């Protein structure tokens, strides 16, 4: 098992021939991910990175049996690309693109709700199941196989957490970068739920940041349904109110948006909350050794 992606996942790359798509698709192939082709409208019938290029996602699915897509399409067209993938029957859609207008994502969310697919992102580093499939832009070597799942809104903070987990003598089952936008396909709770139900995951690292209530919803769900230990961290304890900190969704609008408020709820719900991002790995090692 593992969640979302594994060695049998067949991946199609939307925005395949662009510079980002080309670079990261090559990295994914090098990692051993089964990239079966790509989509660039107008370039169908050609070949890129020794793989076929299609004009539409549907053609790609029909020809290759792809069930996962990764999107490197520019923000103005990315919402459309997500809907195209959903319409073509893709099961897991990973959207890397940063900067999609919120209005587009409101439509996209309503559209995909009626289809049997899972959207990860947008504005995310992607998903990796170490030694099986890397569907994203993360540095693969950091993620060694193991039994700790990671859910995170942030890219480099995911790598940081994975690195600490590995250095603590543990490893990663699947890391899910859910994205830092106000609207994302798979919020914290849904991602945590996937890992709670995964027999190959023993514990979970949950990394959030200021803005929104996804972490609070996840914490309350964990309190009711959690069966595995969770280490949590919230970035932005020192962020001032009303200022957007890089991510479109990272802004303290009300008192529930603050890191302190989220950390309090998480702690009350039984999550082991660390104050410093430098302690994620050590905290997880302590938790797991106490359990064993």
């Amino acid at each position, binding site marked *: 098992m593992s969640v979302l992606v594994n060695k049998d996942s067949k991946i199609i790359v939307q925005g395949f021939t662009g510079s980002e798509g080309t670079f990261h698709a090559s990295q994914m192939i090098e990692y051993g991910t089964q990239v079966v082709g790509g989509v660039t409208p107008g370039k169908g019938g050609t070949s890129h990175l020794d793989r076929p290029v299609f004009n539409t996602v549907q053609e790609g699915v029909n020809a290759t049996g792809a069930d996962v897509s990764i999107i490197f399409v520019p923000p103005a067209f990315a919402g459309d690309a997500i809907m195209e993938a959903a319409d073509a029957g893709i099961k897991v859609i990973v959207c890397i693109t940063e900067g999609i207008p919120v209005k587009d994502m409101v439509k996209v969310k309503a559209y995909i709700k009626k289809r049997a697919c899972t959207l990860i992102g947008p504005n995310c580093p992607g998903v990796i199941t170490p030694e099986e499939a890397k569907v994203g832009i993360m540095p693969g070597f950091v993620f060694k196989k193991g039994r700790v799942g990671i859910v995170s809104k942030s890219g480099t903070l995911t790598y940081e957490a994975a690195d600490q987990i590995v250095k603590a003598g543990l490893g990663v089952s699947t890391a899910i970068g859910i994205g830092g936008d106000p609207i994302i396909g798979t919020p914290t709770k849904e991602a945590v739920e996937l890992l709670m139900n995964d027999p190959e995951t023993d514990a979970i690292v949950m990394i959030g940041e200021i803005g929104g209530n996804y972490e609070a919803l996840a914490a309350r769900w964990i309190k009711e349904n959690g069966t595995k230990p969770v280490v949590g961290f919230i970035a932005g304890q020192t962020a001032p109110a009303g200022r957007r900190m890089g*991510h479109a969704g990272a802004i303290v609008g009300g008192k529930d948006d603050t890191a302190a408020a989220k950390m309090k709820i998480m702690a009350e719900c039984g999550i082991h909350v660390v104050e410093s991002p430098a302690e994620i790995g050590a905290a997880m090692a302590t938790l797991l050794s106490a359990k064993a």
Partner: protein
Amino acid sequence: MNIHEYQAKAILNKYGVAIQNGIVATTPEEAVEAAKQMHASSGQSWVVVKSQIHAGGRGKGNIVGTEQRGVALAKNLDAVKEISTNILGNVLVTIQTGEKGKKVSKVLVAEDVYYPGASEPKEYYMSVLLDRQTSQNVIIYTTEGGMDIEEVAEHTPEKIHKEWIDPLTGLTGFQARKIAYNLGLSGQANKEMVKFVTALYKAYEETDSAMFEINPVLKTSDDKILAVDAKVDIDDNALYRHADLAELRDESEEDPTEVEAKKSNLNYVKLDGNVGCMVNGAGLAMATMDIIKLSGGEPANFLDVGGTANAQTVEAGFRIILSDPNVKAILVNVFGGIVRCDRVAQGIVDAYNNIGNIPVPIIVRLQGTNAEEGKKLIDDSGLKVFSAIQLKEAADLVKQVLS
């Protein structure tokens, strides 16, 4: 992107939302002229002079060192001149501006809409914004207008109504009517409110906004429904398809260093602390600020250099951080994934040499691809730079240089 009240009202007006009319002035003379025009068009002898800054609480805020409020009623032209002279070119401090306040360079001379008539004027509150949890837009409204909505939510949550909008239908007729009835309006005022909310939602949708807050919405004594104030936040990510709205940006409202940073494609937010930081990735940047605090310092900024931490971006970043005289140390935190740490390290050494003498200690934490090579490059450079690989080591170094 935040815009001024007068700009927001112009947008509302364009979409058919009734507003409290007004004219912008940049000098007391212009303000007096504006008041004359308002007298002529509204038939009212009073006007309201409203400071135009990107912050709320103007009516209760004072111009620094005076008793002058940021929003004031003027009952004659002499008062218009006096109030606008007191305000223009001076600094207004409100609950939202912080102690430093904001310089006011424009006032809106607006008609007095609280005139007496057949019925009492009544204030309401209405906002349109994204509800992240449902991924839908929501209209929030209450009869408790003119107050801070967070306070209403805390003390009388039952008085706050919410109407979620299905993206497939937009705001429907029955929803607009429901809102008007829930606000207790009948007769002509009810019809006016239906029109008001319908036009308001259309304006929100078509301008790709992230938030519209109208507080207060006023029912006048002759049953008109007007937007007396307007706070509008437009989705930055959608500005590429609204060239006209992008022009409304007022850079004088932003920190000059932040404007400068934007030109170098750096995502920088100025803060008040003493330790600067430069990081790749927004989440790690926030986490690095937290580390600084936990190590006994206060973050002087947020700075995300993104995926390409090369010599140019690093140099631009150093220069921006160093322009803040409060900075006593700088922490560079890069997790090299696709970016190689030795390249970043070389960039740091080159940037350091280009700038010449950097007066504060620099701590460089490089982790990820080629971290050891990066650390060696820094250590061998002979520069006043401390290097670290583990995040914990970096935190300890911050502690050390601050003590």
